[in-house]
């Protein structure tokens, strides 16, 4: 079962994401702040991370940057949840290498679609690697 790490300081959002993803057949792990999220990401090496931007201790941009610049974790797709939808926020996100962005209030079905897209892509990517 694919492992998905959800990092958000809003318990309600974490719960709803977890519910939808688990009922769709994913195994979910959660963290309620950036620090725990980063630790868990390194420990679990999940297949995908859903990351909120505005969080206490370490914000989502920093976590994304730390992971994407580390060869060990850089292939983990990151889906970033932003609350502000401002162009400059997107720019910062691009620099940090997140793979997808959804703006609050997001659509759960949209998140599910993006997760599926990246996890199937990852499988393809691994296949390609094996072929090469």
């Amino acid at each position, binding site marked *: 079962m694919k492992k998905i790490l959800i990092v958000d300081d*809003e318990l*309600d*959002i974490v719960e*709803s*994401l977890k*519910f*939808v993803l688990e*009922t769709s057949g994913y195994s979910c792990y959660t963290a309620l702040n950036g620090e725990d999220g980063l630790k868990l990401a390194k420990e679990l090496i999940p297949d995908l991370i859903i990351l909120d931007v*505005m969080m206490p201790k370490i914000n989502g941009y920093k976590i994304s940057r730390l992971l994407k610049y580390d060869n060990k974790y850089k292939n983990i797709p990151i889906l970033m949840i932003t*609350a*502000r*939808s*401002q*162009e400059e926020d997107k720019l910062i996100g691009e620099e940090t290498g997140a793979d997808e962005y959804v*703006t*609050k*209030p*997001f*659509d*759960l*079905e949209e998140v599910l679609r993006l997760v599926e897209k990246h996890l199937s892509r990852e499988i393809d990517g691994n296949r390609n690697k094996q072929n090469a």
Partner: protein
Amino acid sequence: MANIFLITDRDSVVKKYEKLCLENSHIFSNSADISIIEDMLNSENYDLVLIDNKIKFSSAISVIKKIKSIKDNIIIILLIEKDIFDKDISKNINGFITEDFDEDLILTTLNINLRMRNSLQKLSDTNKDLADSLYRLNTLYNTSSQFAGTLDKEKLIDYMIEGLDKSLSFSLTCTLSFCNYNEPVLILNSLYEISDELMNAIKLRTVLNYKSLFEGKNIPYNIDENSLKVIKYVKYPANRFNFTLFQFDNMFAPIALGENFYGCIEIFKEKHFTSEDAKCFQTIAQQVSLPLKSATLYQEIIETNKKLEKLEKLKSEFISIVSHELRTPLTSIKNSIDILLSGRCGENSQSAEKFLSMAKQNVSRLSGIINDLLDISKIEAGKMDFHFKPVNIHSVVDYVKSALSGLAKEKNIEILVNETADLPEIMADSQRLEQVLTNLLSNAIKFTPDGKKITISTEFKNTSQIQYHPCFFDDMKKLSGDYIIVSVEDEGIGIAENELLHVFDKFAQIENSLSRKVGGSGLGLPIAKQLLEAHKGAIWCDSELNKGSKFHFALPIASSAVKENLISIS
């Protein structure tokens, strides 16, 4: 009458000249002792010195040089046997008297030299006065130019004191200033050091002077000599002033302009001030008031601007916080509703489904309002980014039509598109244009009854061909050249003529039961207007109550030069 001094060691010569001088009412003294001669020259004001070439205690030339070193401009006449003497001596004397001169000739020689001396003296005095006046004028001029060159109040006070120093060379100025720093401050510019006791006396005196300016009136600032802040500048700290300072000549003036009071200044000088000094002092103290007033006003403007900037910052911070704080709980609500509606928690009853749909609709409405608020505040703050690219208007129309087709279908409304073929591309941010058209089309759907139709059309027009209601004149007169016009025509409730002008105002949704029912933030049209203005376009409408509305917007056909310009901006 002249004061004449004779240097000789011959009694006969003394007798001869003493008699001559007294007969002609000149004051006469003589000596043959070099130390006495020095003392006498130092203490007395001699007009003329006679020196015997035959003195024995020293050579005549060395005595002459000594005299010159003490009093450079004194008249020296040499007494000689015959008119033969060396050049070194002739350079240092004004005249000579030989032994064969008779009394008349001696007197004439003396008188000519004395008269010449007087004339020279007068001339030099006049010159000195002139030079003084010129210097003072120059100082005043420099000081006024300095005053004109700054809006810094501390500098203005510095320049005033500098100007006074140059023109009056004072011993001490005590400036009580209310206009620099945040509290009244006493600025002392002193030649010599001031002891604490003297300082206290000066403080007390200054406060009394200040209060005397407002006798029987309200004192603008209450000050107290014990807590008065002092800033002291001392030119020569090795010396000290004592209490005789208060016996110095002094002058006092307020620094004020009309109702505006900036402080007062007292100035002390060991020598007497002349009437010219007094004028100069008053002028400088008055002159500084006007720039102080300008500086005060300038400072007020700066402070107001700072406050406004702070408010502006608070506003954008507020918007940013609101957007985060509102979106987060809204997300949780939306997620919960979506989960329930998705059936992941089991089947919903029909009425549960109905109320969940209602909740879902209102969540999306609320998030629309938040987006509109954010947009308008971003546009107003000039922070909206535009990405201009060549855009085919029909791709925008097609996109919006298909995006809203579901909404139209729900109301059984038909959307017709009436495109003009081969329209040129325009320079635009396609996302923003989609936003504008989405707004117009969703408004049309909202306000059109079920089963009617909406028409979107595109046209190519020159400014001269565009017709509009006169109430849009101010916006439309900015247009010139060729435009692509996009129109959205509905068969809805329409807008009364007297409401047309306010259609694009913020929160100006025309008040009626239907508009309340259809909802919206009331910001859609003002946002559309601002977005079009950013494209150098315009928006306007025609309408007839109960028959329908036509909303139009115009986008300029960009010349290649404008295209490049827009690309470089974006």
